[in-house]
């Protein structure tokens, strides 16, 4: 069973520049794979994703990589939008189509209430998400 979630972010523009800061970036000279290590922070517009490690996956035109298609974050991920904060173990942020898939003890807090589950897929363009796997909702009753 799953729960649909409406996200607060309506104005997400996936062509905004993506800025990644980290302690270290290493590029494998055989495969060309780029990996960010050490408190990595990915910022695009008002959306921010921080993780221990982020691997860059290229979209390839023929054999030559011609841009970033996905960022695979691991070692504990927090994903923050203006209205929500989401914790998970891993996340795959597809820059190409503006979708995020978080998995591993996902906890989404939105204002007062929180939802927990196994995996959460978000579509930032549409501003919607779907939580699946042992979904539990936590309400804080009647805060004054």
């Amino acid at each position, binding site marked *: 069973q799953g729960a649909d979630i409406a996200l607060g972010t309506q104005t997400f523009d996936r062509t905004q520049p993506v800025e990644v800061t980290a302690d270290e970036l290493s*590029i494998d*000279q055989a495969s060309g794979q780029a990996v*960010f290590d050490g408190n990595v922070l990915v910022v695009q517009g008002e959306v921010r994703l921080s993780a221990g490690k982020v691997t860059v996956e290229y979209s390839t035109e023929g054999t030559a990589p011609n841009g970033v298609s996905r960022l695979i974050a691991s070692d504990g991920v927090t994903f923050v939008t203006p209205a929500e904060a989401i914790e998970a173990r891993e996340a795959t942020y597809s820059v190409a189509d503006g979708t995020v898939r978080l998995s591993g003890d996902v906890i989404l807090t939105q204002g007062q209430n929180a939802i927990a589950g196994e995996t959460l897929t978000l579509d930032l363009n549409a501003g919607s998400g779907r939580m699946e796997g042992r979904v539990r909702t936590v309400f804080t009753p009647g805060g004054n």
Partner: protein
Amino acid sequence: MDAADRYSRLVHWLKIALPLAALAILSTLFFVAETLNPEAAIPYAEVDVDRILREQGVTRPSFGGVTAGGIAIAVTADSVRPSPDAPQTMDGTTLNATLDLPSGGHIEITSPSGRVDGTTQTAALSGGARLESSTGYTVTTDRITASVIDGSVVSEGGVSATGPAGHIEAGRMELRRSEDGTYRLVFGDGVRLIYRPTP
């Protein structure tokens, strides 16, 4: 009758005038001949001979080897002169270092000037070094030091790079060998990358 006379008189004059004209043309042959300059026949090299005598220099030297990790390094320079202040070291112009990595991959570093140190077997490429990697990344920094012994390549000072993942700024850059024997170009000291998605 006089027509025939005039004709024969004409022929008579022509018999004299034509050979004279031929002689005149022949004699001018030697005046119009282009002046031969024996000096220009052998082009001399305009090289400052006494500069060569004063400084011992080597042109197009190359220096290199295979590192412990299996990288084939070759460093060439346009010209090299022994540096006055350090023994066994040479200062060179337009240096070019190429590294062939065992795990596949190729790195080429060029710089306008540099110093090759025989004792430590290192080449320091300075004056604005530029590194191009076969993975599509181009790195520019001030100085890069490459060592033939351990195959380390280290930048001194900040670097900026562009490549498939975007534009990168970092505090330093180093070629590091990971446990499984593959080589990684590692940017450190605070890395910042900007990637503009193509719409």
